[in-house]
């Protein structure tokens, strides 16, 4: 048997064994092959393009949709919600793609948590804080330990009905919550709400952000940039935004749009700065945002073509780099999808979640070239 064929057979057997034993399947992309493939796709100028360098197919994680937010912690573990309604759950995978924890909102016997949505990761204690909606108008933050076990529930105390959509936790334990509240006409477009809550759920301060009124008026007047046919109360600039902590101790709230608007908000409720991040052509929209140390990565995509741009800025909004990925959102052998889960520096890596043809979750790693 020729050596190359024998080697191929050994690799095939090992690969088959790996699948049979439930070991994550790792595929290293040939840098030469990947580079030449992506070079052929490059159309727009920039600082480089995103090249997929590794694919890990998880042994047992199945997925149909990716619900935001997708996140990672300092150890490289990845978090992704698998259900928001009914039996809400967030799965935690280690860097090899093995499941290490599940955060289930129905663990508290005293509170029937029918809906659980956005969450924040506490880097100091490894805890996960999630917005939870029991029946009625009460809004809670559920706190879980890093292994997924339920720790406590904190009721967000306001004397008016509101709809928290995003949460982040300051090092001092306060929550920054962004969401919406009713207009006096409760069928009209809602108003943005941003507040600082104490760790016990008391509303400490409500913030009026510079663009709140403008964004509300755009939605109320039916501006197609921030509205969706069929839901006249929604405001996409608020609903599709993101919120993460920066290394400087400020929380960074992003309003969805192009340009995306950022507010750096301190634990005391001060808007430290406001800046915008341009996403190239006007038909691009932000699809995910992550912060690592002193850098912010915003993924913009153009939905129809699947073209993507990864914009890197510092915590003051200054451009650092722009990487493109023509047709990058398209699934397949080289695509990354649009489910951007993690950004790290030194070396610069972007982690996406995808699914293979059988629906198994894939961890896709890209780097700029």
């Amino acid at each position, binding site marked *: 048997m020729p050596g190359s064929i024998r080697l191929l057979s050994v690799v095939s057997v090992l690969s088959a064994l790996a699948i049979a034993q439930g070991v994550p399947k790792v595929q290293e992309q040939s840098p030469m092959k990947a580079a030449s493939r992506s070079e052929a796709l490059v159309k727009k100028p920039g600082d480089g393009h995103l090249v997929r360098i590794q694919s890990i197919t998880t042994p047992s994680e199945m997925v149909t949709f990716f619900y935001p937010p997708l996140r990672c912690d300092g150890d490289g573990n990845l978090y992704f919600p698998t259900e928001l309604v009914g039996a809400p759950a967030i799965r935690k995978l280690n860097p090899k793609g093995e499941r290490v924890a599940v955060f289930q909102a129905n663990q508290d016997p005293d509170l029937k948590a029918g809906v659980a949505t956005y969450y924040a990761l506490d880097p100091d204690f490894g805890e996960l804080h999630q917005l939870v909606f029991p029946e009625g*108008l009460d809004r809670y933050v559920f706190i879980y330990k890093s292994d997924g076990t339920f720790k406590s529930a904190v009721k967000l105390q306001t004397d*008016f*009905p509101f709809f928290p959509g995003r949460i982040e936790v300051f090092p001092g334990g306060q929550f920054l919550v962004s969401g919406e509240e009713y207009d006096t006409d409760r069928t009209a477009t809602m108003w943005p709400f941003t507040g600082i809550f104490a760790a016990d759920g008391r509303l400490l301060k409500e913030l009026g952000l510079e663009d709140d009124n403008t964004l509300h008026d755009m939605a109320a007047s039916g501006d197609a940039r921030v509205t969706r046919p069929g839901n006249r109360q929604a405001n996409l600039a608020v609903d599709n935004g993101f919120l993460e902590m920066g290394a400087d101790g400020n929380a960074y709230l992003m309003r969805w749009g192009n340009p995306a608007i950022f507010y750096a908000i301190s634990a005391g409720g001060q808007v430290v700065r406001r800046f915008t991040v341009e996403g190239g052509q006007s038909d691009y929209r932000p699809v995910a945002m992550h912060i690592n140390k002193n850098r912010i990565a915003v993924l913009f995509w153009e939905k129809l073509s699947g073209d993507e741009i990864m914009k890197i800025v510092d915590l003051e909004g200054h451009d650092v780099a722009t990487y493109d990925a023509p047709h990058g959102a398209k699934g397949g052998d080289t695509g990354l999808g649009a489910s951007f889960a993690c950004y790290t520096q030194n070396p610069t890596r972007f982690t996406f979640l995808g699914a293979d043809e059988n629906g198994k979750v894939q961890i896709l790693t890209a780097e700029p070239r």
Partner: protein
Amino acid sequence: MDFPLVCLVFLWLLPRSLSIQQHKECAMTLARLFLPLVIAIILLANPHPAAAQGGHCTAGCLQIYNYADAQCTGPNCSDSYPIEICIGGCNCGTCGTGGYGLCCGHSYSVPIIYQAPGICCANLPVRNHTHLNREPSARTENADLWTNQPSGLIMLTPTQRYRPPTFVYAYNRCSHIYTLITDEVEPKNRGGL
């Protein structure tokens, strides 16, 4: 005869002391005075359906909340769809499935509120947001969402309604074909109707 009280006394206690003309004038005067009172009493005795249950919503106080976009992926496909969730709010009704779509070949549904009589959030304060550029919302999409009798529902009994299977063609932007989606729904009891 200008004083209603005098009219009242003569009409009820001494009717024979009045002439026919005086009798008519008295009756007209009293009718003008007491008609609004009678109407008010009738209204109080037969309140608006929404308040028929003491203003309390028995179906459920809900809100369709637009949370974010979900991502889907597939071979040569990338797409997203809006995640709308039925959660506690200030609209009285029940949640149901309002529509379907496809995201890279995977079907998803969006909720709808079937409005029911009753009042929600009556005791909660309404915060007054005002600023100079504020404009009233004039859009009327989704009007069928808030009607009392959602289309497509068949009343089997006064408290049991049935939605026949829905046949929906959802366009798959990736494969450029329409896919038929059917929804088999069993009759369900829904209180408060």
